[in-house]
């Protein structure tokens, strides 16, 4: 029985890897790897609070349960359909320290070789503000000239992170796909060590929080495909190395400034 389970697991893993290899791939002059994300659609912004049963841990009366149900019904959101009209490329990994330094000439990261006890180049860059990520994109565009680089929108990020999955259940697989509070030992890790998602993209959850293009709207979930036209902070997605498992979910809609030493980014690319 156990042998059969192992075989099934290995076959499933090979299936994921094969699927990942089939997708379009691209590496730019900086050495940044990209994966092609197909056109398609998904439901974004769904929110449904759930209530603990009567008597749970001695802290829920019948009256409280009914009150919770009523409040949960009121707070629920159905979400909305987002359509990604054409394929785009997204970073297979978070931008690394060596890539950031190659483009920007500096490396702001806290997790240096002195902290880690080994070379830090393959670790994700962190301690970057949203404006730093934008400056990186501007310089990368100036260097590359061939394609257009930018931050993903929140919708693009979530679509790529889901890789076709529905619901909000990726947290159950968190230890296999993400570095977070339960397994990261309070530090970042080299990119690409955890299993990729079904489209071959690594570390969408965990390791470092990732800036996206949208302004943050102070709401519990997004209410439209694109964020507001202005704001004071930008959206953060994916959770970082010290995030609680509750934040290791594709739907988490967080906002800056975030925890400095666990905030990085990845970029998307549009072929000219």
């Amino acid at each position, binding site marked *: 029985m156990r042998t059969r389970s192992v075989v099934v697991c290995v076959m499933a893993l090979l299936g994921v890897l094969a699927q990942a290899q089939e997708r379009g791939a691209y590496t730019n002059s900086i050495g940044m790897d990209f994966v092609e994300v197909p056109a398609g659609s998904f439901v974004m912004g769904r929110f449904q*609070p759930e209530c603990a049963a009567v008597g749970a841990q*001695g802290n829920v009366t019948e009256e409280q349960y009914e*009150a*919770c149900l009523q*409040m949960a019904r009121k707070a629920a959101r159905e979400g909305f359909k987002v359509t990604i009209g054409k394929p785009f490329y997204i970073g297979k990994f978070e931008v690394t320290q060596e890539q950031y330094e190659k483009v920007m000439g500096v490396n702001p990261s*806290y997790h240096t070789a002195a902290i880690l006890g080994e070379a830090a180049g393959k670790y994700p860059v962190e301690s970057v503000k949203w404006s730093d990520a934008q400056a990186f994109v501007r310089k990368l565009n100036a260097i590359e000239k061939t394609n257009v680089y930018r931050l993903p929108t929140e919708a693009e990020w979530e679509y790529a992170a889901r890789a076709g999955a529905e619901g909000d259940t990726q947290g159950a697989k968190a230890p296999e796909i993400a570095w977070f509070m339960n397994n990261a030992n309070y530090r970042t890790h080299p990119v690409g060590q955890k299993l990729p998602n079904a489209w071959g993209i690594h570390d969408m959850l965990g390791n470092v929080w990732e800036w996206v293009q949208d302004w943050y709207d102070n709401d*519990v979930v997004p209410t439209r495909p694109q964020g507001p036209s202005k704001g004071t902070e930008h959206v953060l997605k994916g959770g970082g190395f010290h995030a609680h498992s509750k934040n290791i979910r594709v739907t988490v809609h967080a906002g800056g400034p975030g*925890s400095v030493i666990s905030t990085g980014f990845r970029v998307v690319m549009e072929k000219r």
Partner: protein
Amino acid sequence: MRTPIVGRRIVLPALALLCAGPLCSGAEPGKIPPGFQRIFNGKDLTGWHVSRSNHHGTTLMAKVDKGELVIGQNPIGEGGLLLTNKRYKDFELYLEIKPDWGCDGGIFLRSNEEGNAYQITVDYLPKGSVGSLITEGIPALGGTGPRRPPDWQKIWKKDDWNSFLIRMAGEAPKVEIWMNGEKIVDYQDDKNHALGGARDGMIALQQHFTNPTTPRSVPGGVHRFRNIAIKELNQP
């Protein structure tokens, strides 16, 4: 300078009149120890902000009601953190708290924006503990000295205001806590457990999240705070 007798006769009734209004109903001047600076003005949330990346929630309800700072879930299930804008290194913090029964909260010390911090529990619910020093999202403590008061219920005033005086100083911090004037924690950490070796951080007030397996707040339950004041130590 000593206040002249005549002056005091005028000033004291004037102060009493000033504090007869709604702004002072939760302030109770005189409970804050001397030399402390208020960090909650009793009118609005100036100097504070809600964490937008904490796992308990990113849309915490935080408001001022009758001079009291009130935090709670928003929407149901989603708690969060209210953080000071300023970071503190070594300090004495005084505050008074009145949580609703059935709610899990906490006072976070040297916190980062996401809520990785030293924490004093305010788990005011069945089998809960109030006044214990623990960690939230940082390595487990390994220092010496009592940090989990077993008899907190004997000191706690039910359905009433309870005061905390918290002293935190040193890189590997010594943390002392007095609840309603009685010392309940006297702990010396063995190293600095703050994330990234941070030597300072924000003070934060927590409202726990809830879900079917974590029923750590009652619907609509809140934590109330007043007289929040700080005295910074070892200033250059």
